[in-house]
């Protein structure tokens, strides 16, 4: 993936003799209608309903369509579904869908496919993550091939958001029934703007434009996704010109690479929060310790040190601009206050409060570094934290067994921006995301899940977020930043939720 095409790499080092003359001339001919993207991870599976993986959404969106879509500002907009309406009691969602959509095999998409995706598959016991959201559907009616009515067992205010969120991609009923799930995985078929032509696990996906696409036709004919897991390898790939765009490279590399003629670096704040998930027991049973830990973290310094200042420091677990964000509220960085709080509980620099902290290493940019910086900040006020590295995949298992330590450095992605999927998910003791099992806050969250009135619901979540921060149940840190470096003459739309979609890309 390196050293072959030297286009776009006119920096000082490029003047050096190329010892592979045969290779350097092998610049691909038709770059103008194709793009090669260096992507950090493969899809967990080509069954888009199977696993909730934020990083895979951009890949799924090329091949499959969602009932609803989001624009770059994250507003919910029509896609396969043209009109929708949630009943006042939040228990019924009805709507109409397009009648001009065909799958890649030429078959027509109808409401039967919608029902198959969100109801039949789940009832049939397919092992899909979408089951956890849509098992609330009690009946799914399809009055005509272009309309549907869903009934829920309880008010489901965020159901429209979920139709444009993780895992909600419509898969073809007839095809999947004919070939089975394994057959589908062997040859996945969607209705999206691109078709898969070649797929090599953990290596490469090659896609070609769906000439029969119902929506706006992509300008690029061919898209190659190179799976490059190692951040420094992604850096090397864009620097050598082997790929046209990479995402999730270290922030300092964005600055460095952006200065190379022919390349542009970009930092996009996205709907992903970085926070500390807290327990309500062990060393964190004491509110003073929790608040001391929270006040001792210099979020501005973290942002400067690891995100070139581009990551917004957060006081509530929601991103600026999302409905649940509390704009006029700040939680202070005050190490002196931390010391006082700790002193109240009998801790000091000589007799520090001891606790454990878990972190991922490589799950999001600089995660491990941030964790180590926080440990150091705590040390200065009298909190002695022992750091352990856990794998992202193990978080839920540990949490379920109540084996997480007092705090875990965590990242949570919420492309919808809805506060239920921020504070609600992060603090609901019944959900696997929340390490906090205290019922004082917990009951309030559980109640909010069934509020049908939207204004009341949002207001409730704002109050809840503040309360959680002020009692040390949640320690929000930063709004995450998506980094990307691309060739200057390639344009793309930066989505507020981190999507990078080749259907919006164009060479100038």
């Amino acid at each position, binding site marked *: *993936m*390196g*050293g*072959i*095409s030297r286009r776009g*790499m006119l920096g000082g*080092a*490029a003047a*050096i*003799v*190329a*010892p*592979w003359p*045969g*290779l350097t001339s*092998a610049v*691909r001919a038709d770059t103008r209608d194709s793009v*090669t993207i*260096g992507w950090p991870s493969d899809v*967990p*599976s080509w069954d888009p309903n*199977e*696993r*909730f993986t934020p990083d895979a959404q951009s890949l799924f969106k090329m091949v499959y369509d969602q009932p609803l879509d989001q624009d770059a500002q994250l507003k919910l907009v029509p896609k396969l579904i043209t009109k929708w309406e949630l009943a006042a009691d939040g228990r019924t969602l009805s709507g109409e869908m397009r009648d001009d959509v065909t799958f890649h095999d030429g078959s027509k998409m109808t409401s039967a496919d919608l029902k198959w995706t969100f109801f039949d598959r789940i009832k049939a016991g397919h*092992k899909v*993550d979408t*089951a*956890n959201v849509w098992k609330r559907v009690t009946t799914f009616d399809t009055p005509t091939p272009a309309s549907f009515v869903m009934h829920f067992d309880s008010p489901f205010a965020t159901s429209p958001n979920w139709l444009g969120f993780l895992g909600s991609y419509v898969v073809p009923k007839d095809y999947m029934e004919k070939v089975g799930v394994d057959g589908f995985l062997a040859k996945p078929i969607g209705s999206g703007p691109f078709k898969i032509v*070649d797929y*090599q*696990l*953990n*290596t*490469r996906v*090659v896609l070609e434009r769906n000439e029969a696409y119902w929506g706006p036709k992509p300008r690029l004919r061919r898209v*190659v996704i*190179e799976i*490059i*897991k*190692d951040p420094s*390898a992604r850096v*090397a*790939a864009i*620097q*050598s010109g*082997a*790929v046209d765009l990479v995402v999730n490279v270290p922030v300092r590399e964005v600055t460095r690479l952006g200065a190379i003629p022919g390349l542009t670096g970009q930092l996009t704040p996205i709907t992903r929060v970085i926070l500390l998930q807290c327990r309500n027991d062990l060393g964190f049973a004491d509110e003073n310790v929790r608040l001391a830990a929270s006040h001792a973290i210099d979020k501005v310094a973290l942002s400067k040190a690891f995100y070139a200042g581009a990551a917004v420091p957060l006081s509530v677990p929601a991103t600026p601009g999302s409905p649940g964000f509390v704009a006029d509220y700040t939680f202070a960085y005050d190490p002196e206050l931390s010391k006082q709080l700790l002193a109240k509980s009998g801790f000091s620099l000589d007799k520090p409060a001891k606790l454990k902290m878990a972190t991922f290493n490589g799950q999001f940019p600089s995660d491990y570094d941030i964790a180590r910086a926080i440990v150091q900040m705590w040390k200065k006020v009298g909190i002695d934290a022992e750091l352990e590295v856990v*794998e992202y*995949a*193990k978080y*839920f*298992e540990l949490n*379920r*067994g109540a084996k997480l330590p007092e705090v875990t450095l965590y990242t949570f992605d919420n492309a919808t921006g809805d506060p239920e999927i921020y504070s609600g998910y992060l603090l609901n003791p019944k*959900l*696997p*995301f929340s390490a906090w099992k205290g019922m004082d806050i917990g009951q309030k969250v559980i109640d909010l899940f069934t509020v049908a009135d939207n204004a009341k619901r949002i207001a409730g979540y704002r109050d809840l977020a503040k309360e959680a921060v002020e009692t040390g149940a949640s320690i929000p840190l930063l709004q995450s930043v998506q980094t990307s470096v691309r060739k200057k003459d390639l344009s793309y739309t930066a989505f507020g939720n981190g999507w990078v979609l080749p259907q919006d890309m164009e060479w100038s």
Partner: protein
Amino acid sequence: MLLILARRALTAVPILFVVSLMLFVALRVLPVDPAAMSMPPSATLAEIDAMRSQMGLDRPLLEQYGIWLNQAAHGDFGQSLHLRRPVLRLVADTLPATIELAVAAMLVASALGVGGGLALFALRGRRAELAAESATTVLMSVPEFLWALLFIFVFGVLLQALPFTGRLDASLPRPDITGFLLLDAVLVGRVDVLWSALAHLVLPAAALGLAFAPPIVRVLRSSLLDVYHDDYIRQARLRGLSEGRILCRHALKNAALPMLTLMGVQFGFLFGGSLLVEVIYSYPGLGNLMVDAVRNADLPIIQMVGLTYCVLVLAINTLVDGLYVVLNPKLRRR
């Protein structure tokens, strides 16, 4: 010859059996719950319990092993917990890359080893010998992962002369016939693919090969020295044979045996070393699969990859033993 190979292969079977049992037990004792790992985050405890009994995890360990062995005998080595794909498929997809890398590295190691050994032998008795010998000791101190990092730094970053990620340039189509990229490139007749694949192989193979060359240098030199003590070399000299002829016809032939034995052993270990080199060069082989699996606690993959490495080592040992017999006339006659 075939008989000997078959006999050796048979002795490998019980070893493999014991290894698989040990791997199985060791991995089951780990504080990881494969049932919980294979379920979505929001699964309830009851659902996980159901999964556990469905996977047979609540049965005695030996019974579980029996089930696994039975399935393995039918070609079913389980599913990856994380990737939800058959483990056998994953290994089959990545193994050719690793073999390609290891063979290339072994070629590098052999070329450097034989060249270095002869050079060192030619220096015998001279003043430079001590310096050259110490140099090999020092070179022996550089493990493959340090070479790998050093090469990235020098050839990838400073000189930007060679690619250092993956197996093939992104713009080229990957022919997928045998999985051995160099071979596939030749089969489809794509010179550009072959070139690119070779360029990608240079740094990792050199890093790995360089780390395994010094022992070959030293064994070749010391066996040459041993051989030259023998009478028949003196006789050859008396018969008036030239030094070059003596070296090629007699000495090398006899010194080759211990070297080949060593190279066989080395080749097995080289597969272990390839793991790190693969990680450093983002090379999509068995090593990367293994490290990912370790990070995700994906037990079925760890187990299968562990076994695969084991099979590779045993297969190489068997082959080397066979080669040994072929090359050693004394053993062949017996």
